[in-house]
Structures are given as C-alpha cells and as structure tokens.
C-alpha cells in the first residue's frame, strides 16, 4: 500500500492528492488493469452521450431546427415554463413562483438547527395556508381550480403539506404502538402495518375511486385534496416507525423517574421523552422526506400534473413532439439537486448531533 511510485518533488497538499490519485488508479498491477478496463467501458458510454448532449445538439430555434440526431435544448427553453408550472394561467405565473420561493425559504429555515423552536413550528401551518391561498387565486376575482395547478409548486406543496400533517398523527401512532394500553396498541400496529403493506398506487386509487363514494353526496372534495388526505394518512405510518425507533432509544428509566415525580403521562412525553426522541430521529426523518419527495411523482398515475407528469405532457405537445429524453433530464436534475442536497444535509446533521451527544 505504501509503495508510492510518484517522484518526491511534489510537495504539499496538491502533491499528496495527486499521489493518492495515482495510487488509487495505477498503484498496483490489478488497479491499473481495472482502471483501463473501466475507462474503456466508460468511454463507450460517455463519448456518444457528449456527442448527443453537446456536439450534435440544437440550442436555439424552433422545433424544425431540431431535426438532427442530437439533443434539442431549444425544446427546454421553449417548454420550461410549462414543465415548471403546467396548466397554471400564464398571466398569474408569479403566484406559483412565489409559492416555490416561500416553500424553499421554509425548508431552508427548517434546516438550520438554530431556528428549531416554536416559532418555526408555527411558521409551517402559516406558510402552508399562505401557499394554498396563493395557488387558489385568493385576492383576485377568478379562483383557480386545483386541476389547473401543476409542475414544481404542486410537487413541493403536496410534499410539504402531507409531511407536516402526517407528523403529529405519526407521533400519536408511535406512542400508541409503545403504550401499555392493549386496545390502542393493537390499533396502532394494525394501522401501521396495513399502511406499510400497501403500495402507494393503491392508496392513490382509493383517493380517486373510493373516497368520493364514501363521502356524503353534498360534500364534494376535489381530487388534489383527496389525494393529499390519503397520502397524509399513508405517510404517517412510515413516519411513526421512524419515531418509534427514537422512542426506543430513550431509556425507560427516564419516563419512570418522571412518573415517580408525579408527572402525568402526557407531561412525561411532552417534557422528557419526545424532545429527546424527536431530536434523535431528525436525520431519519430527512431521509424519509427525500423518499417522500420522490414518491410524489406517483401523483402522475391519477392524473395530477406534478413535476414529472408536466414534463411528460410537455413532450406530448404537437409542436414539440417526442423530446422525452430532454424533458426527463431536466426534471431529473431538479429532483437530484433537491434530494442530493438534502441527503448531504442529513449526513452533516447526523455528525453534528452525534457530536452533541458525545459532549
């Protein structure tokens, strides 16, 4: 391992880095062979890809200009508005844009441990209500029905609302699953396992087909809201399992000691158990949130125009027909940017919290 074949003249950080690189790529005979084979295979894939994406690509112009073999980035330029906002009235586009900004600000603020507190907790329902009013077209003459909402605001909105609404339910379910009350415990276990055993597509079909039949005739709830209610119930089971792991990490003695001091069950949970347990599970919750953001793309199955479905619909435009790969690449980049950032954040947070524990 220590046999470096690099000349010694290289010094300092850059030198160490390049010697590590050299070691990692060509250090041993085996490494050299692997590097060459992989570089060859990679070339077979990457070179045509570069040819497609850059050399043969069309960057400006109309769809007629995109007759060549390469990518058509002119399509992205022309349809980006549609991919991001779908069928939302173009003259009111500032509304979904503001929703994106508001939700992004809320998420970024939630990511900073210094802001964790009651104010942030109160900001969540307030922002969600604000976004809802904004999308719905409040303060203007014409309300905008939810079947015209679409694109990135819908993805973010459904994600944020359902995650926020599912968390309190999840706390109750997790407490229920760990409680000594047999009836409630059985109920919680049955609920959690049933939800976790069902695919999300099935839940969305229930929202689309069964819920309208189950509600009384006078009460008509639109598709978006139905989907959001069912998704909330569905996700709460997953969040409950993560929270349960946090509850299990708190020694039983703490709750017993608090009970011995005369605190009631709810005071014990509120003052002793939950503050510690929830802190432990935050990285797990972030990972779960990443999975949920990706799962919102399933809304396409019941015909809601989320980001992915909007991208697909954009390539079905008769003027710009068939540029699916470009559209998918754009939304893949958006999803990747959000989720990769979040997963890095989760790792950072995990280390930070671990340090806090050690101190």
């Amino acid at each position: 391992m220590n046999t470096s074949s690099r000349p010694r003249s290289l010094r300092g950080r850059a030198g160490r880095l390049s010697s590590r690189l050299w070691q990692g790529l060509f250090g041993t005979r085996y490494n050299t062979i692997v590097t060459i084979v992989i570089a060859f295979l990679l070339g077979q894939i990457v070179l045509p890809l570069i040819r497609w994406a850059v050399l043969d690509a069309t960057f400006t112009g109309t769809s007629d200009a995109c007759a060549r073999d390469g990518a058509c980035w002119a399509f992205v330029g022309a349809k980006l508005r549609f991919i991001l906002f779908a069928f939302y009235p173009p003259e009111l586009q500032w509304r979904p844009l503001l929703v994106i900004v508001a939700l992004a600000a809320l998420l970024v603020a939630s990511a900073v441990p210094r802001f964790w507190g009651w104010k942030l907790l109160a900001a969540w329902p307030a922002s969600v209500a604000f976004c809802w009013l904004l999308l719905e077209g409040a303060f203007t003459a014409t309300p905008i029905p939810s079947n015209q909402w679409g694109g990135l605001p819908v993805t973010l909105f459904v994600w944020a609302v359902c995650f926020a609404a599912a968390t309190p339910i999840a706390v109750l379910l997790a407490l229920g699953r760990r409680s000594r009350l047999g009836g409630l415990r059985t109920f919680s276990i049955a609920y959690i396992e049933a939800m976790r055993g069902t695919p999300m597509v099935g839940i969305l079909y229930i929202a689309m087909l069964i819920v309208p039949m189950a509600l009384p005739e006078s009460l008509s709830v639109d598709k978006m809201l139905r989907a959001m209610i069912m998704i909330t119930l569905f996700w709460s089971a997953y969040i409950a399992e993560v929270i349960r792991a946090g509850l299990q990490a708190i020694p039983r003695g703490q709750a017993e000691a608090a009970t011995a001091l005369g605190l009631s069950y709810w005071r014990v949970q509120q003052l002793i158990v939950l503050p510690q347990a929830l802190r432990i599970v935050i990285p797990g919750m972030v990972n779960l949130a990443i999975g949920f953001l990706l799962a919102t793309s399933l809304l396409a199955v019941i015909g809601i125009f989320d980001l992915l479905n909007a991208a697909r619909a954009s390539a079905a435009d008769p003027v710009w027909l068939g540029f699916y790969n470009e559209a998918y690449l754009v939304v893949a980049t958006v999803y990747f940017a959000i989720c990769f950032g979040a997963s890095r954040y989760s790792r950072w947070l995990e280390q930070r919290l671990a340090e806090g524990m050690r101190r």
Partner: protein
Amino acid sequence: MSPDTTPGPVRPGTLRKIRIWWGGWPKGQLAFLAIFALLTVLLIHNVVDTMARIGIMPGFTFLYSSANFEIGESVIPFQAGDSYLRAIFAGLLNTLKVSLLGCGLATVFGVAIGVAGLSSNLLLSKLIRCYVEVIRNTPLLLQLFFWISLAKALPAPRQATLLLGSVFLTNRGVYLPSLWLEGGALGLAGSLVAGAAAIAALLIIAQRIRPLNRRTATVIVVATLVTTIVAVAISGARPVVELPALSGFNIRGGLNLSPEFAALLTGLVVKFAALIAEIVRAGIQSVGAGQWEAARALGLHNGHIIRLIVLPQALRVITPLTTSSYLDLTKDSSLAVAIGFPDLVSIINTTANTTGQSMEALMILIGTFLTINISLSALMNTYNSRMAMRGMSR
C-alpha cells in the same frame, strides 16, 4: 377462589389476563375503537349506497362474469371472455414473476456492486458512488419512463442490436436464449419436487448433526443435483437449448421479454441493486478494521476472514435491511401500471373501471399485497432471529 394446596400466588385467570393486557383507561380505549369502527361502517355504508344509486350490486359475484379485455402478456393462458377472477390471477402471477426475478437479480448485482464499491481502485469506487447517488435521488417512476422510452426506441428486429452473440435487443422486446425441458411436464414437476425435497431433507439432517460447513454443503448440492438428474432421466424429459434467430421480419425462438416487462425489470433491478449495494457496503463496513487485523494476526487468509469473521457479523446488519428492500421492490412493481405492463394493480384498475366494483377490486388488491408482505416479512423475521441467535451463542 377455590382453596389451593400449593403455596405461592394464584395464577391470574383468562379474564384477568385480558384485563391486564388491555391496560388502563379501559372505557376510553373502548370508546375510541367504537368510534373508529362506527366511522368505518358509516363510510362503507355510504359507498354501498352510492353503488346502489348508480346501479351496481356490491359483492364479489362479478369475479365470475366474463372480462372483455385482453391482457398483453400472461403466465397462464388468458383471452377476452375468461372470468375476472382469472384475469386478476394472471395479473398476480405477473406481479410475482417480476418481483421474484427482480429480487434475485437485484441481490446478485447489488452484492457485486456493493463489494466492488469497496475496491481500492478510485475510478471504480467513485463510479459506483455516482451510480448509487443518481439512482437514489431520482424518482423510480422517472427511471421507468426513461427505460420504457429506451425500450421502445430500440431498432426493429431486422436491425436488432446483438449482444453476446445471441441476445437480441429490439423494439419488440428482448430475445434471450432459452433452456427448458422437453417431454413430460409431469416428470419435470416431479423432478423439481424431488430436488426440493432432497435439499430440505438434507438441510434438516445437517442442521441436526452440526452447523453447516463446506463438506456438508457440498454433499447437499451434489445430492440435489443427482436426485434432479435421475428424476429427469426417469421421466424421459430432455433439456433443450433454443437460440433466438432472425427469420423474415421477426425473431423466432428463444425467450421473448416484452418491452414493458424488460423496462420494468430493468428499472427495478437498477434501482434496488443500488439500494442493496449501499446496504452491503454499510454491512461490511460495520465490521471494524480491528477484526480484520486480529484475524490476519491469527494467520487466517482473506477468504477465511470474510467467511468466518466478516460475513456472519455483516449479515446481521444486511439481512433485515435487504428484507425491507425486497418488500419495497414488490410494492414498487405496482408502478407497472404507469408503463403499461399488466401487473396486478393494472388489472385491478381495469377491472374497477369496467365493472364499477372499485371497492371490491381495491379490497382484493390491498388484501393481496398485505398477504405477500406479511408472509414474506414473517419468513424473513424467522430467518433473521436464527441468524442473530447463532451469532450470539458463538
């Protein structure tokens, strides 16, 4: 209480046991459950009412009426006019087919990729990190859309892309060489049963005698092979290898995977191989470097270290996580509905739309998935507790 001659506390009766289990706040709990049950009954009542209003009889009798749709591909023969029950069963078999194949392939690739990711070669390990991050951070549905558009964009059979000499990639699907046994389906089934029985019997015997080591494992494998071959020979079946070949405008022979099936399987395998690779990596890394060093100091060589020291400990981390990956894969196979593969969800959806019996159809769907999930996780839990205990006792 009847007088008891033996000293010590009286054992609680059944009623008392139930009461202890039920715990405190008995009436409140009862009220909560009653309200929940009432709400459920009310909602179901509403559904039944609505169905009656649009003229649909609630119940499962529709399962026996004939379904007037075709299924693109199916394990069992199906044609329009067969019963809905058969259609749903065909869908279930499709789901099981893609899930089982997916789990198997994802495990093989995932383990290979996970181990390769620990390689000291920088290019290889970074490449695998890129693959894992890209796959983990984009929606599966998006990946499936990509695979299906790729599958549909493949050349026509006459200009098919040829891989490894006899795998054809065409826009009508993927053609693979097939291996099957000709003659005597009964004999084939019998030989499979005999083989499985031989494995089971030997495993049980081996477990009784001593923990599985290499010699007993070899004996089991050889015995199973011999049993199977003898059973095949007796039944008169013979193996046939068939290579796909171009004839006219199409490709004949071999095993044909439809574009939808190929896209779904590829998508699931690519996604879950990445997840399993991460699990395997985490599992192997969870075994401390000190253990490797200690084992080396004892004079064990690498193969022995992996088999005796690292794997038994890593598996304890890997098994439960992989199990939940399998369950997720089975559930995610339901995304087939978005790319047009006739799996259980897709057929349930068609059934609900054509008959209007959406409640019953969805009940079947959820019941089926719950059964699959609960039985699989029960199976894996048993295995898991055995692994954990064996590790503990040593």
